[in-house]
C-alpha cells in the first residue's frame, strides 16, 4: 500500500482549526448568533451598589412598571434550591435573600421584550439595606476576622525547623500577586428554550455543560434528565466559563419555564466583569533558607488568596497554588499552607493554570531573593535546585509524589544555548553599568506543571461515535471547544484510527444528551481525556468491522487492516465506505460510546500525600526587556521559548496555545490590573480600563519551539502532553527580566521585590525605592 497517499489530517499534522474557514467568514455560530424563535424574551440582572450589607427589601415596582418589562424574578421565584455553588457548599445563592456580599452582586432579574428594555428597567430598583463594613483584599479581610471560604491545605515534608537551623542564609518576604480577568471576547450568555413537562434546553457558552445541566436542574427542582445543555463553541473561556455560567443558565431556564417563552440573558461587558469571578489574587509570605551555593534547605510559605464571598472553586485553586509552589525545584524541608480567605468581592474562580501560576511566581521570587542575596545569576540558583529524575533523593515533591519524568534540565540547557543567554546577559550587565536612562534585563525561567484534575473523579471522559451507512462519521465527545482546537485534535485521532480523511468526520456540538456526566474542559485535560475516550469508541467500532470483514471473507482477523480510506482484507482492498455499507447490511452495530479514566492517580488531601498528577509538562522561556527608569515604561525585546508537549497531536495548534498562553501570562504580570476603590467597587471592568496585551505588546522578536524530542512516558493519547495551561506560566520570564532591569539601578545588590502586575507605575516606584536603598548601601 506504499503507493497510496496518507490520509488528510492524521495526528502530528498541522491542519488548521476545524472552524477556521467559518470563523474568518463570520459564519461560525456562537450562542448569541442562534436565530431566536418568535416570542423570545431577554433577561438582565439587577445588581447591588454596595459591597456589604444586610438586605432588608427590594422595591421592584418601578422595574415592573418600566416599558417592555414582562416579569421580574427574585429569590422567591426559585422553584428548586437557591444555590449554584459548584462544589456543593451551598454558599452561592442565585439571588441573596438577606445579605449583600459584594458590589455588583446580582439581586434579581428583569425579563423584558428586548434586552435594551430589560437593561434600562434593571436600574430602577430601590434597594433598602443596612450597609456593613467591607474588606476587599485578603490581608484586611483577615484583620477584620472574616472566615475562610473553605478548608485550607497543608503540604509538609521533612523537618522545616532543622532545615532552617542548618541553613547558612535565610530570607523572608511578602509578595502581592494580582488577579486577572479572563476577558474572553465573547461574554457570558445563556439562551433557554422551554419544552414540554419539565424540559428545558439551554444553549450557552460554558466549559462545563454537565455542571450547567445539574445546576439548572437543582435550581428548577427537576431531575437532570429534564435539562439539556448545548455548546457548539465558545468565544474564549480560559476558566472563566467553568462555573461562572451557572447563574446565567439558571436565570434563563427559570424565566423560560415560568413564562413559557424562550429567554436569553447576556450581561454587558461591565456586568460580566463585575459579576463573574477572576483569577485569585494572592498575598504570599515566604521564608527560605539556603546555603552558600544557593541550594535551598528549607521553605515555609503561606498563600492567602482573595477568594471572594463564596467558595466556588477556591479550594482546588488554592490547593493547586501549593502544588506548584515548588515549580521545578526540590525543597528538602518544606511546609506550605493555603489561606482561602473570604473577601467582599466577586467569588474568584478558575483561570488558566488554576492557582498554579501564582504558586510558581512565588517560587521564582524566592529564587530571586537567593540570587540577589548571593550576588549570583538567578539561572544558576534555578539549576542548583532542579528536581532529580526519580532515581535520587531529590525528586520528592512537597505532596510526596516522585518526579519521574523530569526533562527540565535538558529544556533549560537547550534554551540557554539557542537564546544565547549567557552572552546576552553579559552584554546587558555591561551596558547597564554605563548608567543610562534605559536599562535592560534578561531572565530564563522554567516551568513544571502537574497534569490531572486534583479532584480525582474528574479524570474521566466519554465520547460517542456513529458511522453512518454511507461511511460518514459523526463524532461527539464531552469536551468543549473554546478555541484551543480540541475538536480538531480529537477528530484527528478518530481519522487516524479509522484511516479516513479528516473531512469525513463531522464534529458536532457538545451536548449533555450525547455524553453524560462529563467533566469541565479544564486543567489542560481536554485532549488527554476526550482523545482517549474517542479512540476507545473508534476502536470498538473498528473491532466490529474487523470481525465482520474477517468472517465475510473467511480470513483471520489479523489479516484485516485499516489503510488510507480503505480496508485491506487479506489480498482484497475495499473502500472504507463500501465496507461500512456491507457491514450495515449485515446488521453490524456502527455506533459506540467510548470511555476513559486516567490511571495511576490518587490523592489524600487530609494527609497531603499521593500522586495527584499523572505526569508533568515542562517548558522554559527566556525574555529580554528594556525599561525607562524615568517613567517605568518598558518593552519586551525578545522572547525565546522551548516547550514540552510530548509528541504533538497538531504542532500548529500546540504552538498557538504556547504563544497565546505566554502573551496572556505576560499580560497578567504586566498591564492587567484589577483595581477596587474604597467603596469596594471594581473600577477596571471593561477593556477601556482593563488592559490586556495588544499586538504591539508582544516581544519584538518571538521564537517559539516545541521540544520535538519529547515523548510522554505515560500512555497518553499518542504520547502527547497537555498544553493549555503550562505555557501560561512562561510569562514569568518577562517579570523576572523586568526585575533584573530594575535591580541594575542598585547594582543588583537589592531584590526589587516587584509585585504584580508590574505596571509602569510599579516599575518606576521600584526603581525609586532601589535607588534610595542602593544609596544607603
Amino acid at each position, binding site marked *: 500500500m506504499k503507493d497510496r497517499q496518507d490520509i488528510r489530517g492524521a495526528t502530528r499534522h*498541522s491542519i*488548521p*482549526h476545524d*472552524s*477556521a474557514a467559518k*470563523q*474568518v*467568514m*463570520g459564519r*461560525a455560530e*456562537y450562542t*448569541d*448568533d442562534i*436565530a431566536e424563535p418568535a416570542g423570545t424574551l431577554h433577561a438582565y440582572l439587577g445588581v447591588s451598589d454596595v459591597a456589604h450589607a444586610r438586605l432588608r427589601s427590594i422595591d421592584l415596582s418601578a422595574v415592573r412598571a418600566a416599558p417592555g418589562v414582562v416579569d421580574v424574578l427574585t429569590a422567591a421565584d426559585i422553584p428548586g434550591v437557591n444555590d449554584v455553588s459548584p462544589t456543593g457548599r451551598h454558599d452561592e445563592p442565585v439571588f441573596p435573600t438577606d445579605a449583600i456580599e459584594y458590589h455588583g452582586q446580582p439581586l434579581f432579574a428583569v425579563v423584558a421584550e428586548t434586552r435594551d428594555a430589560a437593561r434600562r428597567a434593571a436600574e430602577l430598583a430601590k434597594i433598602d439595606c443596612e450597609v456593613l463594613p467591607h474588606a476587599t483584599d485578603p490581608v484586611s479581610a483577615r484583620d477584620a476576622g472574616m472566615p475562610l471560604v473553605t478548608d485550607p491545605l497543608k503540604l509538609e515534608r521533612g523537618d522545616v525547623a532543622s532545615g532552617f537551623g542548618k541553613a547558612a542564609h535565610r530570607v523572608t518576604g511578602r509578595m502581592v500577586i494580582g488577579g486577572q480577568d479572563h476577558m*474572553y*471576547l*465573547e461574554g457570558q450568555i445563556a439562551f433557554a428554550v422551554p419544552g414540554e413537562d419539565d424540559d428545558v434546553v439551554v444553549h450557552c457558552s460554558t466549559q462545563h455543560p454537565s455542571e450547567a445541566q445539574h445546576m439548572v436542574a437543582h435550581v428548577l427542582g427537576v431531575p437532570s434528565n429534564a435539562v439539556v445543555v448545548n455548546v457548539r*463553541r465558545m*468565544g*474564549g*473561556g480560559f476558566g472563566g466559563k467553568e462555573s461562572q455560567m451557572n447563574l446565567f443558565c439558571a436565570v434563563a431556564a427559570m424565566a423560560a419555564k415560568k413564562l413559557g417563552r424562550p429567554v436569553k440573558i447576556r450581561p454587558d*461587558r*461591565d456586568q460580566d466583569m463585575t459579576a463573574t469571578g477572576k483569577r485569585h489574587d494572592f498575598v504570599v509570605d515566604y521564608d527560605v533558607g539556603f546555603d552558600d551555593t544557593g541550594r535551598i534547605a528549607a521553605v515555609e510559605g503561606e498563600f492567602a488568596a482573595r477568594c471572594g464571598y463564596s467558595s466556588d472553586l477556591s479550594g482546588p485553586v488554592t490547593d493547586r497554588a501549593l502544588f506548584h509552589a515548588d515549580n521545578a525545584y526540590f525543597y528538602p524541608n518544606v511546609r506550605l499552607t493555603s489561606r482561602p480567605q473570604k473577601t467582599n468581592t466577586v467569588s474568584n474562580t478558575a483561570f488558566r493554570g488554576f492557582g498554579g501560576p501564582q504558586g510558581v511566581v512565588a517560587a521564582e521570587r524566592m529564587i530571586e531573593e537567593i540570587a540577589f542575596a548571593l550576588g549570583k545569576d538567578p539561572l544558576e540558583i534555578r539549576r542548583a535546585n532542579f528536581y532529580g529524575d526519580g532515581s535520587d533523593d531529590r525528586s520528592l515533591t512537597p505532596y510526596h509524589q516522585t518526579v519521574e519524568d523530569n526533562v527540565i534540565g535538558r529544556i533549560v540547557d537547550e534554551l540557554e544555548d539557542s537564546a544565547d543567554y549567557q552572552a546576552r546577559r553579559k552584554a546587558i550587565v555591561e551596558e547597564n553599568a554605563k548608567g543610562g*536612562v*534605559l536599562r535592560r534585563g534578561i531572565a530564563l525561567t522554567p516551568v513544571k506543571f502537574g497534569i490531572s484534575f486534583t479532584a480525582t473523579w474528574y479524570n474521566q471522559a466519554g465520547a460517542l461515535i456513529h458511522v453512518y451507512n454511507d461511511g460518514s462519521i459523526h463524532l461527539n465527545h464531552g469536551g468543549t471547544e*473554546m*478555541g484551543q*482546537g480540541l475538536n480538531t485534535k480529537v477528530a484527528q485521532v478518530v481519522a487516524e484510527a479509522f484511516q479516513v480523511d479528516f473531512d469525513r468526520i463531522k464534529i458536532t456540538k457538545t451536548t449533555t444528551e450525547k455524553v453524560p456526566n462529563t467533566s469541565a474542559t479544564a486543567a489542560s485535560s481536554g485532549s488527554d481525556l476526550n482523545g482517549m475516550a474517542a479512540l476507545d469508541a473508534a476502536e470498538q467500532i473498528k473491532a466490529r468491522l474487523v470481525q465482520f470483514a474477517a468472517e465475510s471473507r473467511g480470513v483471520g482477523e489479523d489479516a484485516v487492516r485499516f489503510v488510507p480510506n480503505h480496508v485491506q482484507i487479506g489480498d482484497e482492498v475495499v473502500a472504507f465506505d463500501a465496507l461500512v455499507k456491507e457491514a450495515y447490511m449485515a446488521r453490524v452495530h456502527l455506533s459506540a460510546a467510548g470511555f476513559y479514566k486516567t490511571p495511576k492517580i490518587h490523592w489524600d488531601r487530609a494527609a497531603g500525600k499521593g500522586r495527584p498528577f499523572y505526569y508533568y509538562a515542562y517548558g522554559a522561556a527566556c525574555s529580554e526587556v528594556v525599561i*525607562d527608569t*524615568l*517613567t*517605568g*515604561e518598558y518593552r519586551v525585546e525578545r522572547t525565546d521559548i522551548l516547550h514540552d508537549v510530548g509528541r504533538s497531536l497538531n504542532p*500548529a495548534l500546540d*504552538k*498557538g496555545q504556547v*504563544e*497565546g*498562553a*505566554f*502573551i*496572556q501570562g505576560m499580560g497578567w504580570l504586566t498591564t492587567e*490590573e484589577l483595581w477596587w*476603590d474604597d467603596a469596594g467597587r471594581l473600577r477596571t471592568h*471593561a*477593556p*477601556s*480600563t482593563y488592559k*490586556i*496585551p*495588544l*499586538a*504591539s*505588546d*508582544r516581544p519584538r522578536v*518571538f521564537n517559539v519551539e516545541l521540544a520535538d524530542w519529547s515523548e510522554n512516558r505515560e500512555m497518553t493519547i499518542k504520547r502527547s502532553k497537555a498544553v493549555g495551561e503550562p505555557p501560561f506560566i512562561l510569562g514569568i520570564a518577562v517579570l523576572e527580566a523586568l526585575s533584573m532591569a530594575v535591580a541594575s539601578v542598585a547594582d543588583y545588590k537589592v531584590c526589587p521585590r516587584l509585585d504584580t502586575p508590574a505596571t*509602569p507605575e510599579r516599575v*518606576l*516606584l521600584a526603581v*525609586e525605592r532601589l535607588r534610595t536603598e542602593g544609596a544607603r548601601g
Partner: protein
Amino acid sequence: MAQQNHIRFLLNDTEITVEGAKATLTLLDYLRLERRLTGTKEGCAEGDCGACTVLVGRLANGVLRYETVNACIRFLASLNGCHIVTIEHLRGEGGALHPVQQAMVDFHGSQCGFCTPGIVMSLYALWMENSDPSVGQVETALQGNLCRCTGYEPIIKAALAVGAYGSPARDALSVERETIAATLNGMQATGRIVAGPQDDMAILPVDAADLAAVLGEYPEATIVAGATDVGLWVTKFLKPISPVVFINHLEELKTIDLSADMLSIGAGVTYSEAENVIREALPHLSEYWDRIAGWQVRNMGTIGGNIANGSPIGDTPPVLISLGARITLQSMEGAREVPLEAYFIDYGKQDRKAGEFVSAIHIPRPKANQIDAAYKISKRRDEDISAVAVGISVTVDAAQITGARIAYGGMAATPKRAAKAEDALVGAAWSAAAFDAAARALAEDFAPLSDWRASAEYRLLVAGNLLRRFHLEHDAAHEGPARLAAV
C-alpha cells in the same frame, strides 16, 4: 431644501432606506438584530475590542474612502449616504475565501474565532491601503483589535503575507468603485434630515449654517461627530441624549489649512484625516498621534470632539495648549475665538454657550527657536487612556530659556498649564538644574488624583520626570537614548 425623515445607505450590496431612524440605534444592533448579519460581534460595546469592526465607505470631496469603524458605538443615523461593508461581504474570486481570510486560515490566525471577523476587517482595510505593510504598520492597524487567544503572532504573519494572496486592485470594492460612488452620490441628502421619535431624535444638518440654525432651535442638543465618547454615554450609561445633531458628514467642518505660520483644522476633521498634515507641520506629534486610541477610533473621532467634550484626559488638549492653539466657536450670533486653555473652565464645564459649536482649531506652527515635545504615559502603550499626558514648548535663545508653555492632562480636573514649572524655566539657563527645579515646582501646580490609571504619587513623579526627559532628549551633551522610542 426639502427636509427628509429617512436615511439611505448601501449595506454590502443592498441599497437601504430607513425611515425614522432613532438617534441612538447603533450600527451593531442594527446589523445583528434587524438585519441578522451576525458575523459582526459585540465584545465590549465601548469601542475598545474591535470585534465589531466594519468598514464604512463615504464620499469625501467626491472621493470614496473606506475606513474601519467600531459598529458598537457608531450610530446608524449618522451614516446617510455611506457604504457599510461587513464581514459577510468579503469574498475571493470564484467563490473562494478572500485573500485576507485565506491567509488567516493558513497561518492559524483564529482560535476561538470571536475576535476574528473584526480582525479580518481591520486587515482588509490595511491591505486595501497598503498590501505590503511593515510589522509596525500591521501593529498600528491592529491597535483597536483585541485577541485573547493567539498572542497575535499568527495574525501578524498572516497580515504580512496577504499581499501574496491577491491584489487589492482586483477586490470587489476596487472593481465596483465607480458604481458605488455614483450610488452613494445619489443618496446624499439635499436638505436637513430629521428622524426618530421626540425622545430619540436624530438631526443631520445640511451644512454648517444649518447646524447653527439647528442649535438655535435646540440649544441643548447633543452634538455628535465621531461618537467615540458619546457612543459610550448610550451603550454603557444608558443616558438620554435626544435630540442628537450629527455633524460628521459636514464637509465645511473638514477643512485643513496650512500656512507658513498657522495650521487650521476644522472641528470635524478626524485624527486619521489630520494625520498627514500633523506629520508635516508638527512632526513632534507624529509618534504621539499614533498612540491616540486605536485605528477605528482615530477614523471616527475628531479633534474638535476631543476638545469640545472637555475631558480632563483627552489626548489632544495638552499638546495643543502647549502650542498656543486657539479655537473658533460658532453660532447663529456669529463666531468668536478663544485660547484653548481658556475654554476649559472646570471639570465638566467649558466656555461653550448654548447654541455654540466648536468649528475650528488654529495651531501656531513652532518657531525656529522653539523646542516642542509631546509625551503620553499609560499602562499599556497603545489604545489606552493616558495617566499623564504633556505638551512641552520651550523657547531657547542663546542657551537661555525665554519662554515655556507646559500643559498636562490627567493632573487636574481640566487640561491645565503648569504655571509654576513654567516660571521655574523662564529666565533660567538651559540646564538639568532648571528642569529639575521645574519638575519640583509641579507639586505646587498640581495635586493629582489616585485612580485605576495611576496613583497621585506616580502621576507627580512621572510628570516631573517627563520634564527631565525633555531636557535629556534635547540636550547636546546627553549621550544615549532617553526613552524607549529612541531604541
